């Protein structure tokens, strides 16, 4: 696979944390590539390093060793300021606990990335809400929305900047099976337009993706 067809490329990445005085290696020599528009599920048991891998790809964390290329750009060693700019333009996040800001309406939550990017034209917010089918709930605050609706708002927030990569960390973990399926369908519909990487425990849901990457004890066990 050549780099220009790869949206994400991880080369020999490792991540170690200090827990007290003990160094714990969470990820070891990870090598993988994800194509543009691909929908990939990352599976593994708790502590296998799924979320850490997601944070490395999402530029929320840096690898202790190795390199990560996003859309052909090596993000290793870039400054925090550069990473913030790159993250804004390239990555959208969806979390298990939705992580919406309670004091803001659905519309305002979705608008946040645009506000931080200094975008004055906020028509993309309406488009994103329409895309997740929540235009009619735009003025509602998170507490007034169901779990599924909150996660759809979170997805709208993740796609409002039209990112190249959508990272979803256990997006259905806090939802019932029916709502979870709806969310997966929504993510599935976005693959192609953007690269979708989803972390999940649920093999049934993972089967909706193009490919599954299994992590075991910090290593890829495909």
């Amino acid at each position: 696979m050549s780099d220009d067809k790869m949206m994400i490329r991880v080369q020999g990445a490792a991540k170690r944390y200090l827990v007290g005085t003990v160094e714990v290696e969470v990820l070891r020599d990870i090598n993988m590539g994800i194509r543009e528009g691909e929908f990939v599920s990352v599976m593994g048991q708790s502590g296998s390093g799924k979320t850490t891998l997601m944070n490395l790809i999402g530029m929320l964390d840096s690898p202790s060793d190795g390199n990560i290329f996003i859309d052909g750009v090596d993000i290793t060693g870039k400054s925090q300021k550069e990473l913030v700019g790159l993250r804004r333009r390239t990555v959208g996040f969806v979390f298990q606990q939705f992580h919406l800001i309670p004091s803001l309406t659905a519309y305002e939550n979705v608008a946040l990335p645009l506000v931080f990017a200094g975008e004055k034209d906020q028509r993309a917010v309406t488009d994103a809400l329409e895309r997740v089918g929540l235009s009619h709930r735009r003025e509602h605050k998170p507490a007034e929305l169901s779990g599924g609706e909150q996660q759809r708002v979170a997805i709208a927030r993740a796609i409002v900047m039209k990112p190249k990569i959508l990272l979803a960390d256990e997006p259905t973990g806090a939802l019932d099976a029916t709502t979870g399926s709806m969310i997966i369908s929504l993510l599935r519909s976005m693959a192609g337009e953007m690269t979708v990487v989803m972390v999940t425990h649920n093999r049934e849901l993972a089967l909706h993706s193009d490919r599954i990457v299994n992590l075991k004890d910090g290593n890829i066990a495909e």
Partner: protein
Amino acid sequence: MHLHSLVLKDISRRKTKLLVAVLGVVVASAAIVAVVTTFSAATGSLYEESNNFGANIIVRPEVRTIPLVTGSTSMGSLFTGENYIEESEIANIYTIMHSSKLSVVAPRLYGVAELGNSSVVIMGVDPEQERNLKSWWNVKGNWISSEGLMHTEVMVGSDIATPMGLTEGSFITLRNGNTSIDARVTGVIESTGGSEDAYLILPLVASQHLLGREGKVSSLEVRALCNTCPVEEISMEIEEKFPGLEARSMSQIVRNELAMVEHTRSSAMAVSIITLLVSTLTVASTMLASVNEKLKEIGIMRAVGASDFQVVSMLFFEGAIIGAVGGIIGFIVGTIASSIAAPLLFQATPSPMWEILLPVTGICVLTGMLASVLPAKKALGIDPAEVLRSV
């Protein structure tokens, strides 16, 4: 939606918690405003009172005293020097540098005349200037006017009016050697406790004629308009400009009182500044608690694209809002407190000092921002990955 509207929404959500921080600023701002307003009113009132003291500079002919000594025995002193000021020189006093500060220049001529079988001290004055200087005199009847010698008018001090049976409308004849003046008593000055109680006061021209001192005056009483003007400098300038004259400042008492007010003001201001420091700590601690509460939100914001600068700006803006609201409320509270305290402490009536509203609010805004430094540092240390993982 803008970055600032995010902060305002957050403030409105947590207004009860932020009230403590605002109250801290209110206390500091109110203390500063109350101190400044109260002491400003006290100083103003003191100066106003000092104006009621009358003259604050007395100009006299310089008199030198030469001790007379024979061997080891003192024979007393010999006074030398001109005893009168030329009336024609009075106008020149307005040529000094601080002439705009001179509100009253009142000439006086003292002497002794015969009234019936008694001797009385007469004081010749410029009625118009004297009236400006002695505004607190209560005259039973009318003030004298500056009419000519044909219709001389006099006022009588309370100590001589009763024994001599003088009342408003009495006619008297004053004599000095071969010179005499017929005059009408226009009024009796109620006792002031001062030397004027024993004086007979008449227009300067009449006194000069009676005493045979045409064109002469004994002294000048000067009142300089003085809230900030340097009375001593004016006195020195008069002495330099008019060799042979001696100008004495009478502001010592006022200065002592002002020094006392100033000392009290400094102490009160020190307490206010300590209050401001305590308020900074209150705001800082409230905002630090607020950052701790908002760890997750800050983590989310950073994950969805907030830069370090934006996170810090939001916290500084929050601090500034707390400072501004606290500053304005504090101004109102301080002004009300001052309107209660000033009359009780200094018998002064303060007016709201609108001119300090902006500086005080500015100080409070800076305080709020300063208090945001530590919380901002903490916010910048938040690792979004860690925060989002742990919640």
